[in-house]
C-alpha cells in the first residue's frame, strides 16, 4: 500500500489540515492522471509545505498592528545603530514591537515646549563661549539665589553631610531597610520648611509628608492613586505643559482643560468648572478631581481664599479630589498673600480626605537637579499607597542628608526666602519694564518665575498658527526660547510665557534687543 503523501494530521497545527486536505485530494487526482505516483506524492507535499510555511510566517508576526505588511510604523524607520548593518540580509526578522505607550512617547517631541528645550540644549547661550546661542527663557528655573546656598555650604561643611554615614550598618550591626518615602529627619525639616514658605498660617505635619525624586513623580503617583485608566482631571487652562506628561503618559488618565480668559485676567471660574464637569459626564467620562496650580503656572496669579473655599465646595458636592500644586509658593513677590489649600482644610475640618498638595525643591529652593518632591495629603489611604509607590522614585540618601542640614538652619532659611523673594521681585520689575519699552505687555503677576506676555497684536493670522510662527521666529531669529500659550493649552492665541529668573541683570538688554528685531518685523503697519 502506498503511504499517504499527506503528512499525518497530528503533526500539524490544527487549522491547515482541513484546507490542506481540500487542496491535496483533487490535486492528487489531477497528478495521478499523468505524472503517476511520484509526482502525485511530491507535488501535493510541496504545495502543502509551502502553504504551512506561508501560514506560519503570517501567524508569527503579532496581530498588532492589523496590517503588518503595509503599516510602516515609526519603529522600522528609526535610525539604526551601525551594529545592525549586517542584519538586512535576514529577511525573516519580524519588526520589534514595543508597547503602544512607548510608541507614542518615543516619537520625536512635537510640542514647542519640548522642542524649544531641545534646541537650547544643542545651542545654549553662553556669554563667553557662545554669545550667539539661544537664550533660555522657556524653563522656569531660578538662578538668582544659588549663591546664598553656596555661601551657606561654605560656612557649614561637616562630615555628616557627606551622606555616607547613614547608609552603613545600623543598630546591632545589621543593615536596615531604608524607608523609601524619605528619612524622618528630612520629613520633619521639610514640614517646617513648608510651614515657613507658606507664611506660617498653617503648620505642616511630617507624618503627612511623602518624599519623591521631584514633583514630577509626585504628580504621577497622585494620578495613579486617585484615578483609574480612562478617568479624567479638570485642569484650569492655560496650564504647565508638564502636567500632560506627569498625569497622563503612563497612567492612561485624561486632562480636561477648563479655559480661563484674558478678560477675567485668566481667573478660574467655578461656572466654567461646572460646565466642564457636566460635559464630561455627558460624554461618559468620569472626573476624579481638579488639578490646580497655585501660584499658577504660566499666569503667575494667586488663588484667593474665597475661590479656594468655592473649589472645596465644588469638589465636595461632586465627591472628587483636589490636587493643589503649590511648588511656587515661596516665589511670591507681589502684594497679594499666598493661601495654601492646607489652610482651607485646616479651617474646614471636614473633607480633608479629598485634598492633596504637591510641593518640591526645584523652584523655591533652586535645586531641581537634586530631585526632591513632596506629596502632602490629608488622606491616610492615599498616604499609605503613595509611600509604597515611592520605591520607584526615592530621594537619594546623600541628598536627603544634605538637605536636612540645610533646612534645619531656620535662620538661614528665613533669610534665604526673604532675599529670594526680593530678588525675584526686582528682576520681574526690570524685565516687565524692558518689555514695556518694546510695546509688549504682560498680565500683572505676583508669583512664579515667569511672566505671561500678550503678543497677540503681533501674530498674524490671529490663530495658533500665527502664534507658532511668532514662536518660531523668536526661537530661530531672535534666538530666545519662550513657551507659546498653545503648549499650555491656552485658548486665546498670542500669549507667551517668558521666564526671567535664569537671567542676570546685564543680560536683560541683550534679550530686549533680540526680541526687538522680531517685534519690529511683526508690528502691524501703522
Amino acid at each position: 500500500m502506498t503511504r499517504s503523501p499527506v503528512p499525518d494530521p497530528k503533526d500539524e497545527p490544527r487549522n491547515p489540515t482541513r484546507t490542506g486536505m481540500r487542496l491535496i485530494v483533487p490535486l492528487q487526482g489531477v497528478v495521478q492522471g499523468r505524472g503517476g505516483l511520484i509526482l502525485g506524492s511530491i507535488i501535493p507535499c510541496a504545495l502543502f509545505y509551502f502553504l504551512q510555511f506561508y501560514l506560519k510566517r503570517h501567524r508569527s508576526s503579532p496581530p498588532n498592528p492589523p496590517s503588518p505588511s503595509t503599516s510602516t510604523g515609526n519603529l522600522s524607520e528609526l535610525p539604526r545603530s551601525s551594529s545592525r548593518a549586517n542584519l538586512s540580509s535576514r529577511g525573516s526578522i519580524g519588526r520589534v514591537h514595543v508597547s503602544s505607550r512607548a510608541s507614542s512617547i518615543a516619537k520625536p517631541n512635537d510640542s514647542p515646549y519640548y522642542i524649544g528645550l531641545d534646541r537650547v540644549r544643542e545651542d545654549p547661550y553662553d556669554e563667553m563661549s557662545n554669545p550667539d546661542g539661544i537664550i533660555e527663557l522657556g524653563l522656569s528655573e531660578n538662578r538668582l539665589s544659588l549663591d546664598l546656598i553656596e555661601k551657606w555650604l561654605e560656612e557649614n561643611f561637616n562630615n555628616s553631610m557627606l551622606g555616607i554615614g547613614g547608609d552603613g550598618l545600623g543598630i546591632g550591626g545589621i543593615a536596615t531597610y531604608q524607608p523609601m518615602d524619605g528619612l524622618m529627619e528630612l520629613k520633619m525639616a521639610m514640614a517646617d520648611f513648608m510651614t515657613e514658605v507658606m507664611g506660617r498660617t498653617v503648620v505642616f505635619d511630617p507624618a503627612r509628608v511623602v518624599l519623591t525624586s521631584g514633583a514630577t513623580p509626585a504628580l504621577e503617583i497622585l494620578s495613579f492613586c486617585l484615578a483609574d485608566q480612562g478617568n479624567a482631571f479638570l485642569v484650569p487652562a492655560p496650564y504647565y505643559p508638564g502636567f500632560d506628561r506627569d498625569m497622563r503618559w503612563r497612567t492612561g488618565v485624561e486632562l480636561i482643560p477648563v479655559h480661563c480668559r484674558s478678560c477675567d485676567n485668566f481667573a478660574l471660574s467655578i461656572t466654567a468648572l461646572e460646565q466642564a464637569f457636566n460635559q464630561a459626564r455627558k460624554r461618559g467620562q468620569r472626573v476624579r478631581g481638579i488639578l490646580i496650580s497655585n501660584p499658577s503656572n504660566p499666569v503667575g496669579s494667586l488663588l484667593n481664599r474665597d475661590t479656594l473655599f468655592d473649589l472645596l465646595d465644588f469638589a465636595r458636592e461632586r465627591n472628587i479630589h483636589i490636587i493643589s500644586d503649590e511648588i511656587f509658593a515661596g516665589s511670591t513677590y507681589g502684594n497679594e498673600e499666598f493661601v495654601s489649600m492646607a489652610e482651607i482644610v485646616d479651617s474646614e475640618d471636614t473633607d480633608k480626605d479629598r485634598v492633596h498638595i504637591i510641593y518640591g525643591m526645584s523652584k523655591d529652593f533652586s535645586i531641581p537637579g537634586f530631585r526632591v518632591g513632596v506629596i502632602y495629603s490629608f488622606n491616610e489611604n492615599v498616604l499609605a499607597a503613595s509611600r509604597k509607590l515611592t520605591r520607584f522614585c526615592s530621594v537619594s540618601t546623600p541628598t536627603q542628608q544634605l538637605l536636612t542640614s540645610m533646612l534645619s538652619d531656620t535662620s538661614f532659611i528665613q533669610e534665604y526666602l526673604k532675599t529670594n523673594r526680593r530678588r525675584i521681585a526686582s528682576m520681574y520689575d526690570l524685565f516687565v519694564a524692558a518689555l514695556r519699552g518694546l510695546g509688549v505687555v504682560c498680565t500683572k503677576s505676583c508669583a512664579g518665575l515667569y511672566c505671561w506676555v500678550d503678543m497677540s497684536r503681533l501674530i498674524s493670522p490671529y490663530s495658533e498658527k500665527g502664534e507658532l510662527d511668532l514662536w518660531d521666529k523668536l526661537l530661530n531669529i531672535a534666538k530666545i526660547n519662550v513657551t507659546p500659550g498653545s503648549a499650555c493649552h491656552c485658548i486665546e492665541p498670542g500669549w507667551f510665557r517668558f521666564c526671567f529668573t535664569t537671567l542676570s541683570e546685564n543680560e536683560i538688554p541683550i534679550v530686549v534687543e533680540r526680541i526687538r528685531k522680531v517685534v519690529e518685523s511683526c508690528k502691524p503697519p501703522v
Partner: protein
Amino acid sequence: FYLNFLMDQLLSKIAINDGHGENSAFFDGWKAYDSNPYHPTQNPNGVIQMGLAENQLSFDLVEEWVRNNPKASICTEQGANDFKDIAIFQDYHGFPEFRNAVARFMEKVRGNRVRFDPDRIVMSGGATGAQETLAFCLADPGEALLVPTPYYPANDRDLTWRTGIKLLPVICESSNNFKITSSALESAYNKAQESNIKVKGLLLNNPSNPLGTVLDKQTLTESLNFTNNKNIHLICDEIYSATVFSKPDFISIAEIVEENPNCNRELIHIVYSLSKDLGFPGFRVGIIYSYNDSVTNCARKMSSFGLVSTQTQHLIAYMLSDEVFVDRFIVESSKRLGNRHSALVNELARVGIESLKSNGGLYCWMDLRRLLKEYTFEAEMELWRVIVNEVKLNVSPGSSFHCSEPGWFRVCFANMDDETLMVALKRIHKFVIQSKGINVVNEVPNSKKQYRRNNKLEINLSFRRLDGIMMEPHKMSPHSPMSSPLVRART
C-alpha cells in the same frame, strides 16, 4: 462605615488593590524582625535579619574613598564650586561624565570583554524603577513577561503593579539545579498562547536572585535564540554582576550579543543598578541599557519620573572614574563576599544542611526539604515560622519566590557584621543539634545525587513541639501569614 466606603470609592484600583505585594510571606518575616530586632546588647534574643539582600561588606571602602576625595562631594570645601552647576542641572540625559563612568564600570565588571555606549545609559529610580520603566516600554496592560522561577518576589510588584502586565513563571527544578531549560521556556510560552495571553518578553536575572548562580553560555544563548525566534524581548537584570566571587565567571548578555552579530539586538535590554555591587541602595542609581533606539528614547523620557540626583551623579562620576579604586574595590568586595559565603555554607554543611552550589549574590539557597514534616508548602510555612519564631532568624521561604518545590529557603549573609553572623550560625547549630526525632521526609521526589549527604547527623524536629506551637495561637507571631496579614504603611 458608609463614609469609609465612600472614601474608598475615591481611590483608584491601583491604590486599593494588593499589587504592592506586602501581604506575602516575604514581608511577614520583615514585620517579625521589625517588631523584635536583634541587638547584641539591648536585645540579644531578637530576630536576626537574614532576609535582606544588601551588601554591607565593603561600604567602608566607599566611605574611605569619599573621605579621601572631597572634591567628589559638593558639600565640601573642594567640591562646593561645582554646587551651582550641579544643583540647577535637570537634563534627563544626565551628566556625560556620569554616563561615561557608569559605562566604564559596567565594562570592567565584565572583564572588559564588551563595550557599552554611554549614550545608551538611561537613568531610573533604582533597579526597581528600571524594571518598571522597561515594562511600561515593552508591554501593554494584559500582556505578559516570562520569568524563570524561583524569582525575586518584588518583581511581581515592580513589574506589574502600575503597568498592568502579567508575569508568567518558567518552572525550573532542583533536579537540574534550577537550570533554565529550552523545554521549560517553550512550555511556558505555549501555555500562555493557549490562554490567549500575549507574551512580550523574557526576564532573566543573572546572577540569579535567589539562587546565587550565574547563567552559563549555553543557557544565555538558548534564551537569546528562544526570544529571537519568538520575536519577543529579552531583559537581563544584571544587578548582582559584581557580586560574583568564584568561578564560573559571570557572562553578560552583552557578550553573547557581541558574539552573535546576527541576533536581533533591538530585543535586548539590560537592567543594572549600583545598589548591590557598591552596597549603596540609598543612592538610587538605576540604569537601563537598551540596544533598541525606540526603547532608549522612551525610557529616557520616562526617566523624569526617577532621575538620579545630580549630587549623586557627580559623586559616582568621580568615584567610578577612579580606575585604581574601582579595580581594587571589585577584587576586595568579591573576596569578602566569598569568605562570608564560605563561612555560612560550611557551617550549614556541618549541621547537615545543604545549599545550592552558588558563586554570586548576597545570599544562599538552602535546602531544608529534609526538615519538612511533609513535602508541601504548608509544611514549608510551618518550618519557616519555627525558624523565625524559635530560631529567631528571618530567612525567606521559597514559596515567596514562586519556587515550584517546597523546602527551599533563601538566607542572606552580606547585610550584617561578622559578630552577628557568628550569632546566627550558633543559633542554627543549636537548633539543629537540639532537635528531637520526627518523621521527616526521607525521600524527596525528584531529588538527585547531588544531595547525597552522609547521614551521620540526623536532623529531627520534635513533632510534639511543633504541634504545641500550632495549638497555642497566642504564641504565633501576629504577623504570620495564617492570620490576616497587616499591611502596615511604613513611616
